[in-house]
């Protein structure tokens, strides 16, 4: 008989995306035992790591909705949060561009909607001003949103998790929840959650499983929820295209599309991304790119930015929106965040699609409030809200570079040539507080392998560091944890 180990916790969070990690971080302010499980091998493996990397202002969402309220609230606190957590953030503003009269009407509608939602910093620009502000961009008029920002969504999630972890939260990766049972009569152990590795007894279970949240809810018999995975594909452009665009540029939204339209967004790392498309698919984990959409994205983007060329593309990715709105209907349904009345302590978060990243912290506070209704939350006196990230060598001035190398010669070894990432930074990424060691984990922590050579220079070097400096066998070096092994072993 296989003996499954048992772990008792106050709160079990299912899913280590931005929302799950934000909930964990907020709960770490209190004297609670909190565990986060995720079936993947790092945080942000799903939608949190696969989006437009924009902090939204909240003008796109229906007035009175949770989406609108939490997005506006999230936007207001985002900069401070990024400072606390040492996450790259830049308030770029954003332009929503109209190409015809219908678009101009739409701009008026979303402008008013934005004001209704409490967005500040919205303005309508005429064609002349648009031309002057964004000479490379097409369009006849635009709405500017000053409060929109760009950030690094992966590092944001990493930072939330690292901060939570330093404040006592336990993260368990590579564990897939298989079964949840309600235990009657035990106030402290209301749920028994079984993963493929062990069983957890928890007083609260928070379902932050994103695209998988419906499946988790079904384990306790909640069959009323439906999600329709809607894939969005993106293209990544070479940094060389950075000069074309410093501000996210979106087309005016069209009716019935389950997204915000194909837009151009500069990332915090200097690459422009194009996307996303919107396509309802069956498999909520099919992160494919398709020829049809690659071509279409490029054509659409060229309308917004006529100077764009095909050779500027250096990569592609896709993410999945967990939409509650069925394909026949399109558009948005509001976030569903609630403790199930017939299952006390079981908190469902369903349909957290865009603007879920922006709203993640207000969502987390909502979850804390729900928990605070039924128990006293005592402050964790040693809680520290500050998290320090990995120092970026390439951002330092010459004297500082010299000083760093003198302290640690590994700063003198550039491992990733496109993004100028040094061995010292790679090693810090490998030694991350969450203990994850895949190539993708390193990539998203220090941005190595993401440049125009796609890791041609640094991939083999990183593999060598993992092998020589950290004793990891070649056959255990993975892209994203188990099942994604790169190598079969030694040649001889």
């Amino acid at each position, binding site marked *: 008989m296989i003996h499954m180990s048992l772990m008792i916790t106050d709160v079990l969070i299912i899913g280590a995306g931005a929302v799950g990690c934000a909930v964990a971080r907020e709960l770490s302010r209190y004297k609670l035992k909190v565990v986060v499980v995720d079936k993947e091998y790092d945080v942000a493996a799903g939608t949190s790591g696969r989006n437009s990397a924009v902090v939204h202002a909240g003008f796109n969402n229906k007035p009175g909705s949770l989406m609108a309220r939490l997005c506006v609230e999230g936007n207001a606190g985002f900069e401070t949060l990024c400072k606390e957590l040492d996450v790259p953030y830049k308030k770029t503003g954003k332009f929503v561009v109209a190409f015809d009269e219908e678009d101009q009407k739409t701009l008026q509608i979303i402008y008013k909607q934005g004001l209704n939602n409490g967005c500040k910093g919205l303005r309508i620009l005429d064609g002349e001003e648009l031309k002057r502000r964004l000479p490379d961009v097409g369009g006849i008029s635009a709405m500017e949103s000053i409060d929109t920002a760009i950030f690094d969504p992966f590092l944001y999630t990493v930072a939330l998790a690292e901060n939570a972890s330093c404040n006592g939260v336990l993260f368990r990766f590579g564990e897939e929840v298989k079964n949840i049972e309600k235990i009657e009569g035990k106030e402290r152990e209301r749920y028994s959650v079984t993963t493929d590795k062990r069983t957890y007894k928890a007083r609260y279970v928070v379902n932050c499983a994103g695209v998988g949240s419906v499946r988790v809810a079904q384990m306790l018999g909640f069959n009323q929820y439906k999600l329709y995975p809607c894939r969005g594909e993106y293209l990544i452009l070479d940094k060389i295209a950075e000069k074309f665009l410093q501000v996210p540029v979106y087309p005016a939204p069209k009716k019935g599309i389950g997204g915000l339209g194909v837009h151009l967004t500069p990332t915090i790392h200097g690459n422009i991304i194009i996307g996303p498309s919107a396509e309802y698919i069956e498999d909520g984990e*099919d*992160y494919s790119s398709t020829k049809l959409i690659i071509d279409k994205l490029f054509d659409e983007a060229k309308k917004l930015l006529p100077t764009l060329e095909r050779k500027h593309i250096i990569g592609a990715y896709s993410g999945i929106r967990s939409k509650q709105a069925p394909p026949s209907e399109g558009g948005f349904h509001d976030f569903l965040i609630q403790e199930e009345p017939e299952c006390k302590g079981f908190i469902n978060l369903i349909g957290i699609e865009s603007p879920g990243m922006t709203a993640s912290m207000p969502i987390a506070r909502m979850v804390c409030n729900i928990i605070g209704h039924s128990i006293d939350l005592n402050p964790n006196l040693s809680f520290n809200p500050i998290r320090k990230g990995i120092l970026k060598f390439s951002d330092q001035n010459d004297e500082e570079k010299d000083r760093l190398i003198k302290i640690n010669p590994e700063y*003198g070894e550039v491992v990733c040539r496109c993004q100028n990432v040094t061995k010292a930074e790679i090693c810090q990424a490998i030694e991350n507080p969450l203990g994850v060691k895949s190539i993708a984990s390193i990539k998203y922590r220090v941005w190595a392998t993401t440049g125009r050579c796609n890791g041609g220079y640094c991939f083999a070097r990183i593999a060598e560091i993992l092998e020589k400096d950290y004793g990891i066998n070649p056959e255990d070096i993975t892209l994203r944890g188990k*099942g994604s092994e790169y*190598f079969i072993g030694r040649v001889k």
Partner: protein
Amino acid sequence: MMERYDVVVIGAGPGGLAAATSAKQHGAERVLVFDRNCYCGGVLNQCIHDGFGLVRYKEALTGPEYAEKACREADKANVEIKTGAMVLSISKDRVMSVVCGNGFMKVQAGAIVLATGCRERTRGAISIPGTRPAGIYTAGVVQNLVNIKNIMIGKRVVVLGSGDIGLIMARRLTLEGAKVLAVIEILPEPCGLQRNISQCLYDFDIPLYVSHTVSRIIGKRKLEAVEISEVDDNKQPISGTERIIECDSLVLSVGLIPENEVALTAGIALNEKTNGIITDDYLQSSVPGIFACGNCRSVMDLADLVSEQGEVAGANATCYIKGEKMKIYMEKQSVFKKGFPEKGTVTCPLCPNGCSIGEYGEKVVGNKCKRGELYFRQEQIDPRRTLTTTVKGIDGMLHPIKIENVRKNELFYKIQNLDKN
């Protein structure tokens, strides 16, 4: 204090080493080469196959042998070489910002030769549709992993692109026990040298699909299969021609791009289409006093020609600081033949001519010299190959070796015996 040199060369591959040696020989006093690797010779070190040096040294050398010769020449000329040092940027007045294990430094040069080589075109750049699993590599990375880092990528391999590195790696992986299921080429003709088509693919019965491409990548976490399709005249996949090949590795050999990140920091003009450094007849870039040679200027087929070009660039860099008249560089094309070997002939690998030799009745035809005839006769009765592989030394590292005159049908036997010892 900022260090000053007469000529600084960036990159210690064949071009850079030749440039530095030549600068010294032409009278530059202080000559320094920077390389970001901790060794000299650049990519040659991982190119353990032979066929280098046929033009320059009139013998078939392996990459490491060629590199060693070039390093020795630089040593003899008293060139200073600093490895493990990466030049981050160059200013217009030729001051370089460099990082290395000792710290950050600035170095000024009278003239600079850029010999920064090239990088490989990637999956992202050619937008292959599908998922993004582990198991997709560029050919040069595989060469580095297999030949230097002692890491084996997989058992069932598909190669996309029939350039020389792809062909060489198809053979190399086969010799190390992988099954290379197909080499896929989007053009109607293979891009590699005839001798490589013949010795890397035909020798091992590796199928070559021309006018085909990989139209989709399949596999969520690890590569499970690729879908290949025939392409039309516009290189677009033809619907209905798809077929699935199950594999664990896809090796991309889809072109090389001049690597000019450092050149850009100096504001040097690049060719919009090729990304190569634009030079005048003297190999001088758009910034006076900064010269370029080798693959960072335009991607070349032969290391030998890179060395020759490096010599001219190094000499002209010296002329520049002395205010002397520079030498015009004459563009040379490789004489090696590319594409399908002519039917019924063998491609002679003994010299750059690469004669297609056949029989007309009893007479051997197509050869330009006697050696070609002998080679052809040998091919008919008992074909021999030069086996290039690695052996594990007592230091635990891989060492390249070359064994000449191995019977073609005994290559596997030989390599297995080597590994046993």
